[in-house]
């Protein structure tokens, strides 16, 4: 019961309270770039969730079972980025071979994810938060992906409606997206009290 409680609060916290986009500013590039249409945004969110869960788990295992016993924390960043790049490459090849329709729908997003700072950022935050068990690492990285998906889908919904609005010309595109994100961040601060 205790473990379940920890996992549940951890999950809610990483999805809503410590949302990667709104409080940690991770993954802003795809957040601005791909949030124009809601189906694209959802695709990106799913791809990120998938890769994030995978690489969060893998980097946790490498960090705890390989680097820490050998006192090789110096090589942490190099190891992490290698794992993420390799994971993305593997996922891409696997999907291409066995799930072509899914591969088609992920399209350009998969290779882009390697340099998505949300992935590496989450792996590093798992270290900072002192995640101590494997199951916790899995749940937190999955939650991080879900949080990103929620954030990018909300933004895509708003931006689809914003096309009908007369935005001042200088603010069109990225500036108004950032301002909207600021207001959303304000709204998400309201979740801070729920745990």
């Amino acid at each position, binding site marked *: 019961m205790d473990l379940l409680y920890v996992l549940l609060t951890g999950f809610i916290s990483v999805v809503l309270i410590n949302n990667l986009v709104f409080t940690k*500013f991770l993954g802003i590039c795809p957040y601005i770039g791909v949030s124009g249409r809601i189906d694209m945004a959802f695709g990106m969110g799913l791809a990120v969730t998938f890769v994030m869960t995978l690489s969060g788990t893998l980097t946790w295992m490498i960090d705890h079972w390989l680097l820490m016993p050998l006192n090789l924390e*110096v090589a942490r*960043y190099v190891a992490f980025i290698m794992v993420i790049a390799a994971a993305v490459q593997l996922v891409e090849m696997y999907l291409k071979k066995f799930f072509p329709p899914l591969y088609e729908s992920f399209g350009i997003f998969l290779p882009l994810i390697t340099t998505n700072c949300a992935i590496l*950022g989450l792996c*590093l935050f798992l270290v900072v938060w002192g995640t101590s068990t494997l199951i916790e690492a899995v749940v937190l990285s999955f939650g991080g992906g879900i949080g990103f998906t929620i954030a990018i889908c909300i933004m895509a919904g708003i931006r689809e409606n914003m096309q009908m609005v007369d935005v001042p010309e200088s603010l069109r595109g*990225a500036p108004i997206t950032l301002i909207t994100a600021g207001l959303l961040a*304000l709204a998400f601060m309201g979740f801070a009290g729920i745990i």
Partner: protein
Amino acid sequence: MATTPDGQNVYAEAVATGLWREIPVFRMLLGTCPTLAVTAAIKPALTMGLCVIFVLVCSNIMVSLMRKGLRPHVRILLFTLTIATFVTIADLFLRAYQPVMSEALGPYVPLIIVNCVIIWRAEARASNSGVLLSIVDGLAMGVGFTIALCVLATIREVLGTGCLFEIPVLPKAFPAWAAMGMPVGAFLTFGLVLGFINYVSRKRS
């Protein structure tokens, strides 16, 4: 001296590109994560800027040196590994000599690895130019990035706390806008500054 197709000195062109024409944060919208995350006060912003300059110049030198041996399919991987190595050096240096700053910046120092500015310069400049030009380019882009961070950090620190470099600059009667130090302030300031820059460049053209 080498010149660009339209007869400009290549070094002058690289400096102008980095500092204004393609200033990473404001024009190209690259490296937005650190831009938002470390600009709550000017000190971390400056530290971050210096780290990025160091990594950018070093990785540009390395990439420029090995540009003849690069193969397309391992290119990005090699760039990333080079960058990760220098970021590790910067992180260890910071932890040893500036422990407070290192604590404050936290994972945003290692996140320089995935800062698109650096890989963009490796791809666009260092992989096809000589070492000297790559250094100049790295310096110009890094300084451009730092300037952008400092602009945002100045606005946010002054309005958020009434101080600059932790020295009070505004009268005591000024109510500090706490929101400027929070994520909200980061997004709003960046959005409005971008809008302002768009406005100015539209007026000028």
